[in-house]
Structures are given as structure tokens and as C-alpha cells.
């Protein structure tokens, strides 16, 4: 049992939750995730660690209500607990001094991008962050990311904040203006990552994308999270979650992510908390 220390609604269906997890807080590095189960009968779901305080012994997760399990998680209260929490999992982000780095986050992918931005800036990189979402209230951690980046650019689909359009529109403009980057990191919904990585590839920028396939154990045992990278099957949980974007078979990931679409839709409909959210 892991105590819930705080809980905050960031927007309509996006929540931030602080969990008492001293060991994970101490061990975790940028780019890693946890697997949790809200209660003793729940599914296991992977969530990226958004922030930690090693001294205070907590970690924060940010999640969007997508299916039954995230709905269930959003229904838990401060002082209550999540049943199971394991981590930190996955390989940490490779952090070194690369030079000029572009960090691109879309939607709920903004949360896991934040620790990577911080780590890269601390390592002496010149970080340009571009974050985007459907509308202003879905742009999270804006001030944190602004403080951690050399420059922050924002896009919203409906133009309620920053540039109207997609994150890709912003870096099209940057590339057109002749800006060059040594490396890029991209995290977000899979369609956004696919589009963004196509553009960075065209601009000749080596890019890492953090993948979010369906997982069960998260330790390499089941192979559910397998993805094709460079023509080889890799397990996102132990070989990733970050991979070099130009080698990723995006269409396969998109197809596999849809494996349980019907089941997830039913779970969402059946979930009381979901209607409350």
C-alpha cells in the first residue's frame, strides 16, 4: 500500500498525484516510469514519473483519464492509498552535454518531458522546449518548464494559448528560419510523435521518442510492450522506453495500441468515477 499525499486536477481529465515512495524517489532518473494498480483487482498500468523529491520521499505522477483503471485512480483520495507501486522502471534518458537540444511535448506527454528538460539543462545544454495541447487548460507545468528551459514555445490547436496550430507548426517555422539543433526529444500521443519525428528526421536532427505501448509486468517478462526498432523486436519496458525515432516502426505501434479499444471503451462507460471526472 502506498499513501496518496496530494491530488490535484490539472484540467478536465488530467490529474496530478503525489505518492509516498522514498525508495523510488531516491533511485529514479529522468525518463523512467512506474507501474501501479489502484486496488487489489486492478489492471497494472505504466505511468511516467513527472517529479520527485528524494529528501521528502515522494514521487508525482500525472495522468489523463483514458480507461477504467485511470478513472479508478482518479477516484482515490488523499490519505487513501494505491494498492501496488513498482519502479523506477525502464532505462533512464541518456543525459550528457549535447549542445542545442529541442524538447517537444504534446498533451499528457508534457508531464514526462519536464524531468528530461530539467536534467538536460542541468547538464549544460541549451534547451528549447515546445509544448502543445488541444487548448489552454491542457497546457500543464508551463511555469516549471519555462524556468527549466532556455526558451519555451507553446502551441494550442484552438489558439487559446500560444501559437494556433500544432507543435510541428512551430518547429517548421524554426527550421525555416535556419535554426539548427544537435538533438531532439519527443514525448506525446503516438500520432503527434510520428509527425514530429518525421519533421526532425527531415531536418537531419537525431531524435529520441519515449514510447508508451501497453504493458503488464514492466520488467521484461511478458513481451506485450514489444516494438520494432531498426527492424528488431525490442521490449519498451527494459530496452526503452526511449528509442531513436528514425528506427521506430510507428504504424505497428499505432496498430498495437488499438488492440483493446473496444474493451477500453466499455470499461470507461462502466466506470462510475469516469462520469464524475
Amino acid at each position, binding site marked *: 500500500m502506498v499513501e496518496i499525499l496530494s491530488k490535484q486536477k490539472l484540467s478536465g481529465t488530467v490529474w496530478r498525484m503525489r505518492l509516498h515512495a522514498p*525508495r*523510488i524517489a531516491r*533511485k529514479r532518473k529522468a525518463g523512467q516510469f512506474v507501474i501501479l*494498480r489502484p486496488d487489489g*483487482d*486492478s*489492471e*497494472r498500468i505504466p505511468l511516467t514519473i513527472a517529479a520527485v523529491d528524494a529528501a521528502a520521499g515522494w514521487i508525482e505522477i500525472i495522468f489523463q483519464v483514458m480507461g*477504467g*483503471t485511470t478513472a479508478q485512480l482518479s477516484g482515490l483520495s488523499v490519505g487513501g492509498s494505491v*494498492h*501496488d*507501486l*513498482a*519502479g*523506477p*522502471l525502464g532505462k533512464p534518458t541518456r543525459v550528457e552535454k549535447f549542445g542545442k537540444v529541442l524538447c517537444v511535448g504534446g498533451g499528457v506527454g508534457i508531464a514526462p518531458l519536464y524531468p528530461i528538460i530539467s536534467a538536460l539543462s542541468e547538464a549544460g545544454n541549451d534547451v528549447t522546449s515546445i509544448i502543445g495541447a488541444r487548448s489552454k487548460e491542457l497546457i500543464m507545468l508551463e511555469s516549471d518548464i519555462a524556468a527549466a528551459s532556455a526558451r519555451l514555445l507553446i502551441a494550442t490547436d484552438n489558439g487559446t494559448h500560444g501559437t494556433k496550430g500544432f507543435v510541428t507548426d512551430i518547429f517548421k517555422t524554426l527550421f525555416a528560419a535556419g535554426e539548427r539543433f544537435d538533438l531532439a526529444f519527443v514525448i506525446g500521443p503516438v500520432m503527434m510523435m510520428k509527425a514530429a519525428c518525421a519533421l526532425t528526421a527531415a531536418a537531419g536532427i537525431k531524435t529520441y521518442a519515449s514510447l508508451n505501448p501497453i504493458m*503488464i*509486468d514492466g*520488467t*521484461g*517478462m*511478458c*513481451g*506485450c510492450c*514489444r*516494438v*520494432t526498432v531498426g527492424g528488431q*523486436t525490442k*521490449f519498451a519496458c*527494459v530496452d526503452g522506453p526511449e528509442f531513436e525515432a528514425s528506427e521506430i516502426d510507428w504504424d*505497428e505501434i499505432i*496498430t*498495437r495500441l*488499438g*488492440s*483493446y479499444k473496444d*474493451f477500453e471503451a466499455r*470499461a470507461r462507460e462502466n466506470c462510475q468515477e469516469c462520469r464524475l471526472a
Partner: protein
Amino acid sequence: MDNKFTRINMKEQDPAARARNFDEVPYGYTDGEAVSEASRCLKCKKPLCVNGCPVNVQIPEFIGLIADGDFAAAAKKIKETNALPAICGRVCPQEEQCEKLCILGKKGDPVAIGNLERFAADWERENVSININDGVNTEKSAPAAKKAAIIGSGPAGLTCAGELVKNGFDVTIFEALHEAGGVLVYGIPEFRLPKQIVKQEIKYLESLGVKIVKNFVVGRTATIDDLFNEEKFDAVFVASGAGLPSFMKIAGENSVGVYSANEYLTRSNLMKAYIQNPSTPIMKGRRVITVGGGNVAMDSARTALRLGAEKSMIVYRRSEAEMPARKAEVHHAQEEGIEFHLLCNPVEIIAGGNGAVTGVKCVRMELGEADASGRRSPVVIEGSEFTLDCDVVVIAIGNSPNPLIPETTPDLKISEKRGTIVADESDGRTSKKFVYAGGDIVTGAATVILAMGAGKAAAKSIMQDLAG
């Protein structure tokens, strides 16, 4: 009963009925059946059966106690050497071990040692409240007790923990998943090993003082060096299991509806996808193909039937004689109506426009010369391609070792060829001082009882190395 050479078989659920439920297949012996079967034992002066047991269960002694009707004493006798008798009685390949060496086997059926072991363990569980101090040297469990960390709560880890706690060690098991038991809970299905039995056997170990920390991934949550330096353990036994599932590396293998056996069985067993309205989904499939010929393949194919498949098929590249699965499991699968496509090898998995699997393209094989394993190796028959329609594929062709511990323990010697931890199979010692390893992480995928034997051997080494 009248014939000394004929075994009393356990009564089983009718194949047609059991193929549609998850209840255990054999019902177990009645008291009378157990006494009669036990009475067949010749009580050899030099019993060969004991030599066949990786944990040296005192077989003639416990069988003698059953024959005398003292079932509680029989269970206690087994537990002197085997901490998990209800599990071993069910899943050990006795026909390859103790029963293979039984003298009665020369003229008829060997004594049903496995069935009797199961009977004694079940009888105790149902009739006796376990005395938690039984066989424990409590005087030694003082604050000064030596601390042992066990990585993984599968058969090797549980056995090692049991041995050490009985000898006064302060034992903690670290389990990566949310439930203890390893392959016993995520892999082996309910109809072959009811989870309640695993829970009870683990509860017994906890009652002896073993601590179990779940959701703790050694290699990530803490490294082996952290366990020594920060947590002050004196010894670490690595029993982390077989690990990553292997795939065939053929086209279409990542289509929607293609599972590794580990994933398929984990969804069904550990995540309880077989119950009504589970929180974790599983694709039930109308026509399910399982690729492989081992026990895990049989478990997968039989699970598919129980989940409601109209047809469950096994595709295996050699013939039935080469199948690594236990004969009894193959027989059970055949009785239940699993269709065996032998001497067939998948060459491609075919998916429809939506990415979901629709069939497996196979080629027919014939057996050629014997290979390194002594089995005749299959050779493709040219032009024999054909397609089997299906909507779910389960790949059960083995595992390779999990890299988490090897990657995070720099001074631990790893087999370059196989990725397994290099350890002396007779005593569990590795290249790193006070680190021991056993079970599938050392041998590659093997059996529950061999893992238990390794757990026992490592416990002995730990006691020797930490003495004084």
C-alpha cells in the same frame, strides 16, 4: 487394488466438461485409495526413488506412513526436505525422476509417488492447523541472525527461503510483481495448480518468519550492491526466473492477437482475465494456435479452450515423441480435443487490413539427423506451404534470461552465449562473493523441482559460507 503391478489412478474431471472450466483436472485420492496405492510400495532397503528426487524427499518413509494411515506424519516427513509438497505433487515430472527409478516399474506401474505426495500435503492443509514453530530453531532467530535476501518468489526462491529460515536466518524475499509465487502464479494455470494452494504454501513460509516484499524490482528499485551496502544483507540468492519470452522472428509476429505464452498466461492467471468482467482484458479467440511443444504450450492451448475457443490447435515442428511436455499433459490436452499439427513450422503470421491476425502460414517438416540435443532435427519439405486460419496466436517457444540483474551487477559473471548467470549448479555459488543463483536464471527454462533443488543447494552453501 488386487494387482501389485497396477497403479490406482486419480479420478479426473470428464474431459468435455473440464475443457470449459478452470477447476483442477484430477480430484485427488480418497483416504482409501491413498492407503491402497501406498501399500504397493516394496519398501526397498536401498530405495532408488530417493536418488531421483532433486530435493531428496524420504519417499519410502512417507509412503509407509500413508500405508499406516498416519497422514499427518506423512506430510511432516515430506516437509522435512520439501517446503512445497502440494505444488510438487502436482507439477513435478515424477515419471522422469523418482517414479522412473521405482523397481515396480520394471514389471508394471511404478508407485504413484507424486499422487501420494499431493495426497499427504492436501490432507494436512485441509485437516491440520500448522504449528508455526514446527522444525524452526527459534533460539537462533535472534537479532544477531544473519540476513539473507532472496530475489524472486518462485520455486527456487521459496525453497531457499524455507531452508534458511528454518536454520535461524533473517530472510527477506524481494518480488517484482504484486503477488508472490513467480511462475507458480503467473504461469501455471489454475486447472493444473490452484492458486489457493500456492497462497497457502507461501503463508506457511511467512508463518515461519520469511518476509516478502512485493513490487520490488531488483536491478531497478535497488541493485544487488545496494542490498549489501544499504540494507546490510549478508548473502543474496538470485532466483529471478527465465525472463524474456522468445519470438520466432518471422513476419507478422507483432500483429494484434499474437501473444507470448508469458503474456497470455499472465493475463489469464495473474491478472485473472479468465473471470467474468476482468479489469485486464484478454483476446479470447475463436480459433487459437499455440506454437511449441512444451508444458507451457500445453497450458496455453488448454487455457484457450477454457476461455471459450471453438478450436485450440498446437503447431509443433517435430513429432510427438520429441515434445518436451510431460506425457500426462499431452494426453490431457488430446483428451480435451486440442488439435495437434505436428511436424509443422510457422513461417509467417498473416494479418488483415486492421492489423489483426487471421492465420498462420506453415510448412511441413520431416525428421532428419539427430542434433546436439539428441533429438532428430526437423527439415523443411519443399513446396509444402499451407495456412491455418486463426484469430489468436500464442508463442510458447521458450525464454531468454532477464537482463536487469546482469546489467546492474558489474562483477557478476554472465554466460556470453546464453545470458544466464554463471553459477555452480551443485552449490549455487557465483563469481561474486556471497551472491548465489539458481533456477531458470542459471539453467534456462527448466522445471519447478530443479529450481527447488537449486534453492536448496544454495541455502546449504549460504549456511556454510556464513558459518561462524
